[in-house]
């Protein structure tokens, strides 16, 4: 125990002695030259003592040249010199080797009078250069990060712009739908009014196919087929006047022959007298009729009169027709976006403004007017 304490005290004393021995140790350029020229072992020991005093790693004494050198770790792990301190009798110099990383060519040791100052100065300069290099790399890294951040911000802004664009488009579509719905309602109201006005102006054509003669004789001759036909086609039999009125739309399906309903064009051909508004039908095959009927008696009497007649709005069957038309119109007037899709009588169309709507309605009404009798008759019979 006592021996250990003694040894510890002795070691501490030796360390203190060593510390005192090297505390003020330093050499100037001239002394550096002298001791290197002396090539004495104590010169080597002295230089090592200086490094021991400075306690700076990576420095050592080259025993061959007695120069203080700075070492670096090569990639292979081998120690190489990066720089060495030389001197003349007036100042220190720096010899830089290729393994040295920082650029030290500009380091001036003229102000370093002692080698300790020179080594400290060099080491500080190296640290400064490396810190500057680190700062530069950090600055580049931050600049790259900033660039990346800015790039991402631009991308985000671009995405936000696209989102905004889509949103605007959606809002535009939504607004168009709103305005389109209003437009559709307006179209419907105006169209209904227009249709009512137009329908009120429609004229029903009544056509009378006149067969003169005694009604009983007619009935006998046609052996009931005429009545059957009357049930199937829009025509009326006026027994008092012995007139059979057939709608214009069905004139082509006039009766001809016993128990036969044939297209009139196969049997009859008509001549329209525009002046008298009389349609006169003549039998194309008189022999056929003569076989069964007394054609001579009836031939010239098979004429039809076209009698234009204006109907009031409330009169039947046009009121029914108007109702049908409006119902169909209301069901098929569908609005999408900024155009109105209209489907009437299996005809689809798109209108973008009321003028187009009017054109469409006029077109449909024109077609409707051509068949007004048929539609009215169908409506009447179907309701029965």
């Amino acid at each position, binding site marked *: 125990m006592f021996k250990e304490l003694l040894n510890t005290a002795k070691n501490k004393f030796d360390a203190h002695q060593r510390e*005192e*021995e*090297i505390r003020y*140790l330093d*050499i100037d350029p001239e*002394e550096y030259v*002298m*001791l290197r020229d*002396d090539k*004495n072992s*104590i*010169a080597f*020991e*002295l230089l090592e*003592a200086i490094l021991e005093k400075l306690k700076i790693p990576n420095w050592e004494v080259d025993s061959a040249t007695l120069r203080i050198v700075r070492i670096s770790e090569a990639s292979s792990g081998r120690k190489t010199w990066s720089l060495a301190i030389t001197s003349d009798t007036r100042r220190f110099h720096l010899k830089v080797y290729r393994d040295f990383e920082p650029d030290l060519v500009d380091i001036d040791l003229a102000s370093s009078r002692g080698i300790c100052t020179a080594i400290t100065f060099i080491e500080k300069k190296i640290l400064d250069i490396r810190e500057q290099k680190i700062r530069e790399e950090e600055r580049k890294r931050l600049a790259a990060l900033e660039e990346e951040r800015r790039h991402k911000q631009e991308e985000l802004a671009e995405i936000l712009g696209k989102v905004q664009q889509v949103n605007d488009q959606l809002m535009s579509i939504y607004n168009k739908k709103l305005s389109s719905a209003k437009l559709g309602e307006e179209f419907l109201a105006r169209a209904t009014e227009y249709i009512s006005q137009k329908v009120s102006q429609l004229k029903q054509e009544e056509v009378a196919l006149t067969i003169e003669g005694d009604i009983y004789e007619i009935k006998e001759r046609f052996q009931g087929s005429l009545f059957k036909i009357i049930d199937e086609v829009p025509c009326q039999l006026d027994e008092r006047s012995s007139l059979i009125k057939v709608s214009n739309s069905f004139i082509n399906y006039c009766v001809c022959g016993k128990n036969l309903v044939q297209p009139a064009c196969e049997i009859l051909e008509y001549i329209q007298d525009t002046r008298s508004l009389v349609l006169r039908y003549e039998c194309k095959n008189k022999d056929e009729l003569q076989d069964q009927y007394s054609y001579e008696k009836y031939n010239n009497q098979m004429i039809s009169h076209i009698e234009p007649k204006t109907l009031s709005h409330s009169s039947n069957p046009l009121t029914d027709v108007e109702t049908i038309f409006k119902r169909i119109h209301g069901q098929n007037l569908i609005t999408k976006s900024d155009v109105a899709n209209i489907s009437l009588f299996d005809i689809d169309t798109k209108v973008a403004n009321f003028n187009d709507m009017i054109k469409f309605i006029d077109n449909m009404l024109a077609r409707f007017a051509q068949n007004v009798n048929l539609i009215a008759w169908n409506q009447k019979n179907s309701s029965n």
Partner: protein
Amino acid sequence: MFESGLKYVEDVNIEAILFSTPKKAVVINELRHKAINYDEAIVLAKSYDYPLITAEAREMVDKLIDQSSLTKYEKYIFKLHNKKWSFYKKSAINTGGRDV
């Protein structure tokens, strides 16, 4: 046998001279001219005896350095100066040991 007549001057404070200035060359000159009777000896000597006298003077200064309280490294550095520098006149002691 050559007798240089060199001897140490008594009552000279060697330590005081050694630490009087950081300029070691000046210290060496001080020791040469104050701690030994170099100037008296050189006056009495023949010119061809000068090398012998200066060599002996260097040895005497080295001994003074060895006997001092300096560290071994300081002693070595002082001896280097003593070995390198030529001898100057006493009047040139304060010029830093350099030729005037």
